[in-house]
């Protein structure tokens, strides 16, 4: 047992395994990273009317996001001021107020304490005004996507998103009506590994040829005409991502830990009439030039650090919820482009199912690999490496760096950001540091 300072856990192209396995480091992440950043809460379409609410978690804290009577969105911490019970048990719903199931303390949609039973039992100066549900310090939305931050201070949402606000634009701009709705359902899956394993994987083009070899091989390779996106197209796209293609697809990484990788070679066949109607609707709204620009954005996955991923062209987001150092939950939401023909929504559903259902022909291999990586790193501590593409990164035109698609640039960027958050006021903490 030796001690490594936080600052020593990330060294150039190598990272110590304790960042994945150590419970004390996880606790520090909750405090230093998750309690400070902007995290995704929900989409406004989930809570259209006053009283509508959905549950979410911020840095492990249970939160209820509720539409207020004036149309604003508030995020309340789901813990009764009286004796600590959760005041709201539902994942979503509509309420006029939240009444604690334990002793009946009752709160308004804005979290104000409006009723306490047995008032005669309390001192005359017992002040309800001070005892509301705590509110998430800051809530802000960009184009319907609602974020919260437990920190009262810090960059505002747009400054935080920086160039990666474009991930939201990339989805919403594709909607002929200019809006998207979270109506395509949610997949939920957990794995016995650290959240960072998932975030790395989302920017990793070097893995599909190996991790997803069985899906690539199982995809049909016939050239029969397609009229709709099929599962095999998605499986085969991974197989088509060879070295030369990855080189061209590229990756880019930005301050704050954000990044994206270029699009997969995924052909998205559509019935001709639907495609024409879609394009026409976009042109009517934006004109030819802007439509070509919108449809020309070529990204597969964009990451808003630390735990949000957009697959905008296929109307999917992934919300990663770190639970423990060795357990992570993932929520995959499917959105609908409002104003687009129904075929577009069906293609999005097909994509989300194929790539991210619990029974997905792709995801399941990743989950098995995360579980095993976690077990191996716990049992055999040491260093892991992110050296691919090192030295080949060049500045891009938005203040970031870019490299070939197979580069581990995005992971290096994630860890550089991780260290920035984690080492501030850092002292040494005990971690298992085996000599290698």
């Amino acid at each position, binding site marked *: 047992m030796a001690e490594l300072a936080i600052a020593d856990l990330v060294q150039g192209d190598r990272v110590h395994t304790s960042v994945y396995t150590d419970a004390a480091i996880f606790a520090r992440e909750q405090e230093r990273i998750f309690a400070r950043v902007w995290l995704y809460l929900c989409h406004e379409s989930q809570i259209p009317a006053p009283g509508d609410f959905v549950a979410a978690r911020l840095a492990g804290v249970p939160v209820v996001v509720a539409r207020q009577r004036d149309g604003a969105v508030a995020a309340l911490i789901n813990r009764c001021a009286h004796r600590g019970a959760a005041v709201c048990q539902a994942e979503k719903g509509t309420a006029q107020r939240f009444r604690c199931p334990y002793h009946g303390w009752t709160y308004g949609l804005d979290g104000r304490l409006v009723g306490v039973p047995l008032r005669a039992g309390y001192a005359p100066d017992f002040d309800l005004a001070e005892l509301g549900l705590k509110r998430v310090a800051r809530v802000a939305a960009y184009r319907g996507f609602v974020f919260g931050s437990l920190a009262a201070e810090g960059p505002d949402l747009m400054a935080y998103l920086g160039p990666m606000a474009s991930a939201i634009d990339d989805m919403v701009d594709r909607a002929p009506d200019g809006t998207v709705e979270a109506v395509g359902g949610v997949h939920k899956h957990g794995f016995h590994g650290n959240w960072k394993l998932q975030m790395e994987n989302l920017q990793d083009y070097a893995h599909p040829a190996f991790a997803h070899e*069985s899906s690539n091989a199982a995809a049909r390779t016939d050239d029969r005409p397609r009229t709709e996106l099929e599962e*095999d197209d998605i499986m085969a796209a991974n197989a088509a991502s060879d070295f030369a293609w990855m080189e061209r697809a590229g990756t880019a990484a930005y301050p704050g830990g954000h990044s994206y990788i270029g699009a997969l070679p995924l052909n998205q066949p559509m019935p001709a009439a639907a495609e024409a109607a879609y394009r026409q609707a976009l042109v009517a709204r934006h004109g030819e030039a802007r439509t070509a620009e919108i449809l020309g954005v070529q990204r597969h996955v964009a990451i808003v650090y630390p735990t949000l991923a957009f697959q905008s062209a296929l109307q999917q987001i992934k919300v990663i919820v770190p639970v423990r150092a060795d357990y992570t939950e993932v929520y995959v939401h*499917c959105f609908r482009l409002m104003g687009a023909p129904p075929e577009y929504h069906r293609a999005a559903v097909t994509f989300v199912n194929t790539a991210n259902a619990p029974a997905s022909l792709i995801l399941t291999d990743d989950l098995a690999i995360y579980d095993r990586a976690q077990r191996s790193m716990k049992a055999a501590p040491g260093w892991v490496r992110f050296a691919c593409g090192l030295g080949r990164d060049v500045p891009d035109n938005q203040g970031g760096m870019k490299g070939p698609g197979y580069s581990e640039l995005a992971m290096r960027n994630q860890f550089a950001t991780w260290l920035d958050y984690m080492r501030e006021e850092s002292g040494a903490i005990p971690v298992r540091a085996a000599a290698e």
Partner: protein
Amino acid sequence: MSEPGLVAAVAAFLYREARLLDERRFEEWRDLFAEDGVYWVPVRAEQEDPLHEVSIFYDDRAMMAARIRRLRHPRIHAEIPESRAIRSVGNIEVAPPDAEGVVEVRSVLQMTEFRDGSQTAYHGRVAWQLLPGPEGAFRIRLKRVDLVNAEGMHHGMTVPF
């Protein structure tokens, strides 16, 4: 077929279907489905629409074939070592055939799976639409499995229930 005869035939068919999966005879299992047959595991109770809302499984025969080709691949990492599962079928209720001969069946399913060193229990209610098939057997038009924890947090699933 008389009602007791029909119920017995349906039960025998459901047991055989479960055993084909238990024995990993996936190709023979797929052959039980009609050409337009569907295997569906909804993502929530009372889900009505598999096309505009995501599903845990929503397989036509082509997708079943892809899934099976993958299960036969030597480097399907989630199935190394190969999983083992036992399915129990019970509470079989059979409605009289409709005018087209379609038999609606309800049953419950328990599947216990051993994979990657862990044992997992799955429970579900199954709704079947069975078409009359050769030699008194059936072909499956729909097998819908409503897991008791459909809305819950899942780990990876590699084989059909």
